[in-house]
């Protein structure tokens, strides 16, 4: 490399500190926003509007006892939270915060590494996060964490496939696994003149699948089945306390931030945005601003979901992932590939728009016919005959007859 050594160190530190700060702000913002949604005030003592609360809570965590229960499988028990946090930090390595920045005579992009396998890197780090959850549950040697860990890892691998297939349409459309190529491909629209070419528009079904999948991947409400308190106490981290528990919390919130950053990069143009013809000396700030604004929008979406929606049921969660999201994502990869090839043959823009609409309708039709309502209904119905109730005057009747009887009865 022809760059001096401080450049990669500076790049890495900037990205690391940026995401750590955003995570801290997220934790504070979540407490404030959810408090507002529940007619409370939220933390407002430490710093302006309580903004330093996260810092104080983090410092407090150091002074908490961190006992290691007797039955745990110790090296694995301690390594599990570390795996989660480190994988969370590593997955941001390929996400650019902005375009080229010139500082002290060196020009470099604000990204840790623009790998030629960037998309695979993101998915790989997401997969490693599953290890953290499963190893924590398994090494705790305790019933609740084991059940919670198995549940969460099944949930995460299911939605990982849905997400991976949704990302595959992006790769088909961009024709590259390199993140900078994907961002460059979203600079200007090929469908509508003068609009940003965000992949969310032509790949809307894939975008929807990815957004739903990322909420489930991050284990956030309404898909926070890992922490279904009524059933599993705390899920995989029931036995953890002190700083090792804090690491799991940090990893969870980091996941919200990284997932938001990833969806912005892959589907909403990343740091692309208008520069208003400003001189280069100031214009390099704007991409960072656009990226941050889009990312904060998604973080806010995560917070609103938590404040607004009740927890999903596990069987419905799995139904949604396997029977709705994965088929849609899979079909859309092939449909996108068809479009890309049509475009290669130079078929006019309007024709492609019409075809895109037709394909969208096709997927919608698929959704309605084999869609969530029917599937959810199917899983509600008992498949075996219900155990007959010991009521002598009631003949074993179908549900319809029973409903009729209830209507007749006053």
């Amino acid at each position, binding site marked *: 490399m022809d760059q001096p050594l401080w450049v990669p160190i500076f790049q890495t530190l900037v990205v690391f500190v940026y995401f750590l700060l955003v995570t801290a702000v997220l934790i504070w913002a979540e407490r404030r926003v959810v408090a507002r949604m529940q007619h409370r005030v939220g933390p407002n003592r430490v710093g302006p509007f309580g903004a330093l609360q996260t810092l104080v809570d983090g410092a407090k965590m*150091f002074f908490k*006892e961190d*006992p290691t229960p007797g039955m745990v499988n110790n090296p694995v028990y301690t390594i599990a939270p570390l795996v989660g946090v480190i994988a969370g930090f590593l997955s941001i390595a390929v996400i650019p915060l902005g375009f080229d920045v010139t500082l002290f005579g060196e020009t470099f992009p604000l990204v840790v590494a623009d790998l030629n396998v960037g998309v695979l890197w993101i998915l790989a780090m997401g997969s490693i996060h599953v290890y953290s959850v499963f190893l924590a549950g398994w090494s705790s*040697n305790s019933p609740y964490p084991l059940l919670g860990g198995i549940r969460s890892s099944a949930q995460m691998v299911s939605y990982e496939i849905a997400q*991976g297939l949704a990302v595959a349409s992006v790769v088909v459309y961009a024709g590259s696994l390199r993140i900078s190529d994907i961002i460059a491909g979203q600079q200007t629209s090929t469908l509508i003149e003068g609009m940003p070419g965000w992949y969310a528009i032509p790949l809307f079904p894939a975008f929807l699948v990815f957004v739903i999948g990322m909420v489930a991947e991050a284990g956030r409400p309404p898909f926070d089945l890992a922490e279904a308190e009524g059933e599993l106490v705390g899920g995989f981290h029931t036995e953890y306390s002190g700083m090792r528990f804090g690491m799991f919390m940090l990893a969870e919130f980091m996941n919200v931030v990284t997932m938001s950053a990833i969806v912005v990069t892959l589907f909403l143009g990343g740091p692309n945005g208008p520069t208003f013809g400003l001189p280069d000396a100031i214009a390099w700030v704007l991409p960072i601003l656009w990226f941050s604004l889009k990312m904060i929008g998604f973080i806010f979406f995560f917070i609103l979901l938590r404040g607004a929606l009740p927890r999903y049921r596990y069987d419905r969660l799995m139904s949604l992932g*396997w029977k709705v999201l994965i088929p849609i994502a899979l079909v859309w990869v092939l449909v996108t590939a068809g479009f890309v090839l049509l475009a*290669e043959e130079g078929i006019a823009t309007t024709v492609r728009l019409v075809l895109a609409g037709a394909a969208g309708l096709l997927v919608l039709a698929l959704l309605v016919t084999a869609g969530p309502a029917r599937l959810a209904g199917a*899983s509600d119905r008992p498949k075996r005959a219900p155990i007959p109730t010991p009521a002598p005057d009631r003949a074993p009747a179908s549900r319809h007859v029973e409903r009729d009887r209830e209507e007749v009865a006053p």
Partner: protein
Amino acid sequence: MLSEYLPILLLFVIASAFAVGSLVVSSLVGPRAPNPTKLAAYESGNEPLADVKGTRFSVKFYMVAMLFLIFDIEAVFLYPWAVVLRELGWFGLVNMTVFVLVLGVAFVYEIGRGGLEWD
């Protein structure tokens, strides 16, 4: 080529130092007062019943794991295909459609047999 990964190694070192450092500092400054209750497994306040090795979980999780393997491999095949799609042209699309259909038939059969019902 490999020098591209040097900053990632750096990030790995920084992240590890941050995470491990937090645990070390916490174990140095934190109090330590273990007692038998703290060190026992949490079972909602009951006496811990038995070894967790007796805990069973649904066979459905194995089904999910196997399906995950199949579909993850499918995704692995999709990525390189997606990158070179423009060179492969319609031949590539038709081939991939056949591949997806073969898996799709098995997947529909699996759903039809109730392999993904949780009850």
